[in-house]
C-alpha cells in the first residue's frame, strides 16, 4: 500500500470497500465517514471512546473475538465486516441483554420516536426475548431538581451523562452509584442536581432515562415543528431549535453551530422559553386616562405618542430621549435609531440602561475581542470580576476544553466561582479591593524578575509563560468601585502578555443595539445622564423599548426621579413590567422568539432569528411600531421584506454578513476616571457597618421573562443573599434564616445563605429577582454600600423553600 510519509494515512477494508482515513481514526469513525452505519450507545463523538455498551461490535479478520469498533483504531490492511452473521448475532445478543431489564415504556416515554434504543432494536434487535424472570425494579420517576427527571429502569448505563459532567461541563453533576446489578445513575442522596448544563444530558441520553420535567408528556417529536433560531438570553447567541406545537414553543433544543455553541446549550437556553406563551402577555395598547392605564386602540395610542413626540421635537429635538435595546433585534435597533436620530433628531439614545454613571461600562465598547473558537485555543484565562458560568455559560465550555489540555484558569473576583476546582489560581477579595488587586497583578507582571508579592506568584508565572492569554473583565469589575482602574490594569496585563482583552458585558442583543445606533450621537447623553436630565425636567418624552429600566437601572431612586420628572413616558413591553406600570402609553410588543431578523452576539457575530410563533392579540413587532410612528411624523420607512432590512443593516455598517463576525470597537488606550478605587458609600452606620453590600449576576433569576419560565423560576430559588460564615456567626444569622439588609437608602428582607463563596465582610446580593429590589439599596455614584444585617428571629430558620 502506498504510504506517503508526509501525509500518512491508513487504508482498511470495511464490508468490502477500501476506506482511507488519517491514523488514529477508529474503525467506527472510518465506517461512518464511508457512509456505513454501525449502531452505538455509549460512544459520543464529542467525548473520547469508552467501550461500555458493546453495541458497536464488528468482526475483524484474524482477530478472535468480535471487536468494539468505537475503541478500535483503524490499521492498514485491516479487513472489517459489519454484516457478518457473527456480528448480527452479537448485535442481537447485546440488544437482548440491554432489554432484559428495560421496562419498554415506549407508549408513555418522552423519548419515543427519537430514541436510539427503540430505533436500533427495530433495526438490529432479535425480535424476541428469552428473558422471563422479573425485571429490575426501581422507584420511578425520580425528580432531580426542577428540570430533570430520572427513570433508572430505562437507563442502559452508557455513562454518557456522567462523562458529559466530567469532560464537557466539568460540574460532575451526575454519577454512577452502587455496583453490579444495583448500579444506577444519580446525584448524591438523590438531591437536586447542581448544574447549569443538565439539559444537554437529556439531549444525549440514548434512552428515556433522563427527561425534562417541563417538556414531559407535552408532545410527540413528530408533532413538533422545529424552527431554527437563536437564543437571546445571555448574549452569546447559541443556535437553537424551537420545537413548536399548537402555536406554542414546547421545547428548546441545541442546533449544531460549531463556531458558537457546538451542540450544547445552557439550562437558561433549554428552559427559558415559557415566558413567550405566558397568559400575562400584553395584547392591546394601554393609555393613561385619569391616572389609570386603560385599553386603547392602536390608532389612538400611536396618534397620542406621535403628537407628544412632535410637540417635543418642535420645542427642541433634544427634549426627547430613547432608552433600551437589549431585547430588540438588529433590525428593530436600526429602525429605532433612524426614528430618533433622523426623524426626531435627538442624540440622546442609549441601550446601556444598567450602566452606572462614571463606570467603566460607559468607556468601552462591550463584547469579546476574539472568536469563541480562538478562545478555545487559549492557554491562559484570567477572569476579573466575571463569573463565567453565571454570566456566559457556553463560554465556560470553551475554556473547560482548553483547561483540560493544560490551559491555566486564573480567577480574581469578590466571590468564589463554581469552576474554581479547575483553576490554577484563585483570589477572593472584597469588591472594594478588586481594583487594587488587579493593579497589583499588573504591577507584578511589569516588574518581572523582581518577584511578585506573596499570593500572586502562580498567576504571574502562568501569565508570563502564556502565549495565548485571554483577559476577561466582567460587569462586576467594570461597574464596581474603581471600575476604570480595573479596566486600565486589565489593559496593561493584556498588553504585557500580548493577549486579548475581552469586555464581557451585555445581555440579549446589547451588542446589536450598540452596533446599530442605540448609543449617544454627537453631544448625546449616556443612559445615566438621560435619567438625570429627565429628573431635572429637561426632557418632554422618554421613550423605552427593549428594556425595563425600573428594574434594570442600578439605582432605583434615579429611575423613580426620572419618571417623576419627565412629562411623557412611552414603553414597548410584552408584560406589564414595573416600567410599563408607570408609563403614559404602553405599546404591546413581540418578543424575540416571535421575530424574523437578526441579532448580534458578544463576538460581534450576526445571527438569524426566525419567528417560531405568532404574538398574542394585537401585539406588534418593535420596528413596525417605530415605522408607524415615523409615518405619523411624516417619514416613510419603506422596508419591504426582511431581506431589504438586512441590506439596510449592511449598508449602515459595512462588514455585517450573516453568520460572520464583525469585531466590536477596540478598547481605547486611555480611559477616563471614575469613582476612586476603594470608595464605599457610608451606610446606615451602627452594628455591622464593616459589612459591605455588592450585587452579583446569577444565571437563573426571577425577572419579567425568567420569572415566567417554570423551570428557571424554580432553579433560581427564593430571593437570597450570600453571607460569610464568620459574619453570620458574629451577627447570629442561621443558615436559611430570613434577614433584613438595610443601607442608608432602603431595606429588603430575604433569605440568608451562609457560605464562604463570599469574602468575609461582604454580603452579596444576586440581581434579577424582581420581588427584591437590590437597587433600592444603592445610590449612585456608589456601586457598593455599607450594609447592616439583622436576623429576623421569629422567621423560618433553616427553612430553605
Amino acid at each position, binding site marked *: 500500500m502506498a504510504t506517503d510519509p508526509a501525509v500518512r494515512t491508513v487504508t482498511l477494508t470495511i464490508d468490502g470497500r477500501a476506506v482511507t482515513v488519517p491514523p488514529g481514526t477508529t474503525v467506527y469513525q472510518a465506517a461512518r465517514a464511508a457512509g456505513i452505519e454501525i449502531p452505538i450507545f455509549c460512544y459520543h463523538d464529542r467525548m473520547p471512546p469508552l467501550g461500555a455498551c458493546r453495541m458497536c461490535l464488528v468482526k475483524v479478520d484474524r482477530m478472535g473475538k468480535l471487536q468494539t469498533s468505537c475503541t478500535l483504531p483503524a490499521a492498514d490492511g485491516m479487513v472489517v465486516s459489519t454484516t457478518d452473521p457473527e456480528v448480527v448475532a452479537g448485535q442481537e445478543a447485546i440488544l437482548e441483554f440491554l432489554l432484559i431489564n428495560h421496562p419498554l415504556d415506549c407508549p408513555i416515554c418522552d423519548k419515543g420516536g427519537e430514541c436510539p434504543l427503540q430505533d436500533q432494536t427495530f433495526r438490529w434487535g432479535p425480535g424476541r426475548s428469552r428473558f422471563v424472570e422479573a425485571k429490575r425494579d426501581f422507584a420511578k420517576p425520580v425528580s432531580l431538581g426542577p428540570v430533570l427527571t430520572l427513570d433508572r429502569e430505562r437507563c442502559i448505563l452508557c455513562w454518557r451523562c456522567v462523562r458529559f*459532567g466530567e469532560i464537557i461541563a466539568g460540574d460532575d453533576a451526575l*454519577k454512577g*452509584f*452502587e455496583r453490579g446489578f444495583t448500579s444506577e445513575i444519580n446525584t*448524591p442522596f438523590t438531591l437536586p442536581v447542581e448544574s447549569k448544563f443538565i439539559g444537554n444530558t437529556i439531549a444525549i441520553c440514548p434512552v428515556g432515562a433522563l427527561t425534562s420535567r417541563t417538556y414531559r408528556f407535552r408532545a410527540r417529536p413528530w408533532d413538533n415543528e422545529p424552527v431554527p433560531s437563536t437564543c437571546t438570553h445571555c448574549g452569546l447567541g447559541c443556535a437553537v431549535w424551537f420545537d413548536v406545537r399548537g402555536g406554542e414553543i414546547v421545547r428548546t433544543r441545541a442546533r449544531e453551530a460549531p463556531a458558537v455553541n457546538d451542540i450544547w446549550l445552557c439550562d437558561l437556553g433549554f428552559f427559558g422559553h415559557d415566558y413567550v406563551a405566558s397568559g400575562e402577555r400584553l395584547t392591546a395598547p394601554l393609555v393613561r386616562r385619569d391616572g389609570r392605564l386603560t385599553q386603547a386602540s392602536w390608532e389612538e395610542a400611536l396618534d397620542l405618542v406621535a403628537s407628544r413626540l412632535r410637540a417635543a421635537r418642535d420645542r427642541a429635538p433634544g427634549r426627547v430621549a430613547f432608552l433600551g435595546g437589549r431585547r430588540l433585534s438588529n433590525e428593530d435597533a436600526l429602525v429605532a435609531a433612524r426614528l430618533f436620530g433622523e426623524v426626531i433628531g435627538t442624540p440622546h439614545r442609549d441601550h446601556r440602561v444598567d450602566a452606572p454613571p462614571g463606570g467603566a461600562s460607559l468607556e468601552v465598547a462591550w463584547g469579546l475581542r476574539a472568536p469563541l473558537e480562538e478562545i478555545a485555543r487559549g492557554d491562559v484565562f484570567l477572569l476579573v470580576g466575571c463569573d463565567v458560568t453565571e454570566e456566559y455559560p457556553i463560554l465556560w465550555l470553551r475554556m473547560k476544553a482548553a483547561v483540560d489540555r493544560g490551559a491555566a484558569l486564573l480567577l480574581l473576583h469578590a466571590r468564589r466561582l463554581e469552576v474554581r476546582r479547575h483553576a490554577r489560581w484563585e483570589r477572593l477579595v472584597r469588591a472594594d479591593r478588586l481594583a487594587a488587586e488587579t493593579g497589583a497583578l499588573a504591577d507584578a507582571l511589569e516588574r518581572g524578575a523582581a518577584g511578585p508579592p506573596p499570593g500572586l506568584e502562580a498567576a504571574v508565572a502562568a501569565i508570563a509563560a502564556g502565549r495565548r492569554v485571554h483577559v476577561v473583565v466582567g460587569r462586576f469589575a467594570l461597574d464596581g468601585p474603581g471600575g476604570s482602574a480595573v479596566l486600565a490594569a486589565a489593559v496593561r496585563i493584556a498588553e504585557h502578555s500580548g493577549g486579548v482583552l475581552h469586555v464581557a458585558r451585555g445581555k440579549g442583543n446589547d451588542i446589536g443595539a450598540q452596533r446599530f445606533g442605540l448609543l449617544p450621537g454627537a453631544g448625546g447623553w449616556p443612559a445615566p445622564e438621560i435619567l438625570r436630565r429627565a429628573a431635572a425636567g429637561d426632557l418632554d418624552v422618554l421613550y423605552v423599548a427593549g428594556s425595563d429600566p425600573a428594574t434594570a437601572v442600578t439605582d432605583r431612586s434615579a429611575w423613580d426621579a426620572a419618571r417623576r420628572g419627565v412629562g411623557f413616558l412611552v414603553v414597548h413591553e410584552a408584560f406589564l413590567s414595573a416600567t410599563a406600570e408607570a408609563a403614559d402609553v404602553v405599546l404591546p410588543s413581540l418578543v424575540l422568539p416571535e421575530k424574523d431578523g437578526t441579532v448580534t452576539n458578544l463576538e460581534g457575530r450576526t445571527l438569524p432569528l426566525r419567528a417560531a410563533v405568532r404574538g398574542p392579540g394585537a401585539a406588534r413587532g418593535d420596528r413596525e411600531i417605530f415605522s408607524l410612528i415615523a409615518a405619523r411624523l411624516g417619514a416613510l420607512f419603506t422596508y419591504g421584506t426582511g431581506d431589504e432590512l438586512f441590506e439596510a443593516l449592511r449598508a449602515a455598517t459595512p462588514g455585517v454578513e450573516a453568520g460572520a463576525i464583525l469585531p466590536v470597537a477596540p478598547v481605547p488606550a486611555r480611559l477616563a476616571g471614575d469613582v476612586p478605587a476603594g470608595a464605599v458609600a457610608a451606610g446606615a452606620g451602627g452594628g455591622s457597618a464593616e459589612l459591605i453590600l455588592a450585587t452579583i449576576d446569577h444565571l437563573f433569576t426571577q425577572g419579567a421573562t425568567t420569572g415566567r419560565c417554570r423551570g428557571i423560576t424554580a432553579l433560581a430559588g427564593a430571593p437570597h443573599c450570600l453571607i460569610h*460564615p464568620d459574619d453570620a456567626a458574629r451577627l447570629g444569622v442561621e443558615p436559611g434564616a430570613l434577614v433584613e439588609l438595610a443601607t442608608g437608602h432602603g431595606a429588603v428582607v430575604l433569605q440568608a445563605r451562609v457560605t*464562604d*463563596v463570599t469574602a468575609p465582610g461582604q454580603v452579596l446580593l444576586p440581581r434579577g429577582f424582581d420581588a427584591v429590589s437590590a437597587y433600592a439599596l444603592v445610590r449612585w455614584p456608589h456601586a457598593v454600600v455599607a450594609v447592616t444585617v439583622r436576623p429576623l428571629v421569629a422567621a423560618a430558620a433553616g427553612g430553605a423553600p
Partner: protein
Amino acid sequence: MSGPPARPLGAEARAEIARLVGLYEHRQSALLPALFVAQREHGYLSPEALAGVAEALDLPVSEVASVASFYRLFYLKPVGRHVIQVCTNLACMLNGCAAVVRRFGERLGVASGETTADGRFTLRTVECLAACEEAPAVLVDEDRWARVTPGDIDRLLERYP
C-alpha cells in the same frame, strides 16, 4: 454544595487526610484511605462527612459519594458499635452460611441490614470476604473468623461488648 458542612470533619481527621494526600501523585488516590478516616471519626459516612472529604481532597462531592457507594466497607447509614458481615457467596453458601446467618438473626433479633435496638450490632450479608478456603467466613469489625458454625456464635458475640 456550597458552604461548610453542617458537622464538619474534625481537625484531626483533616490533618490525617492532608497527610494522606502527600503520599500519592494524584489527590484522587487518597480518596479510599480518606473515606476510612472520615468513617472512623463519624462512625459512618454521613452527607456531611462526604462533603468534608470532598473539600479536604478538592474533589466533587458527587465523585466522593459515588466511590463510597461502590464499596461495601463504607457505611452510608449509621451502624451499630460492631458490624458483623457474613459472606453468602458460593463457597460459604456450599459450606452452610445460611444457618450462620439464621443463628445470628435469632440471637440478635434483627434481619440482615438492621441494627440491634441497643445499638451494639449491625448484621449484614456480603458477597465474598476473600476467604473461600476457610468458608463460611465472617468479619466482625476488622477481625476475620473462619469456618464459623451456628454453635460458635454465642461465644463470638461475647467478645464484642
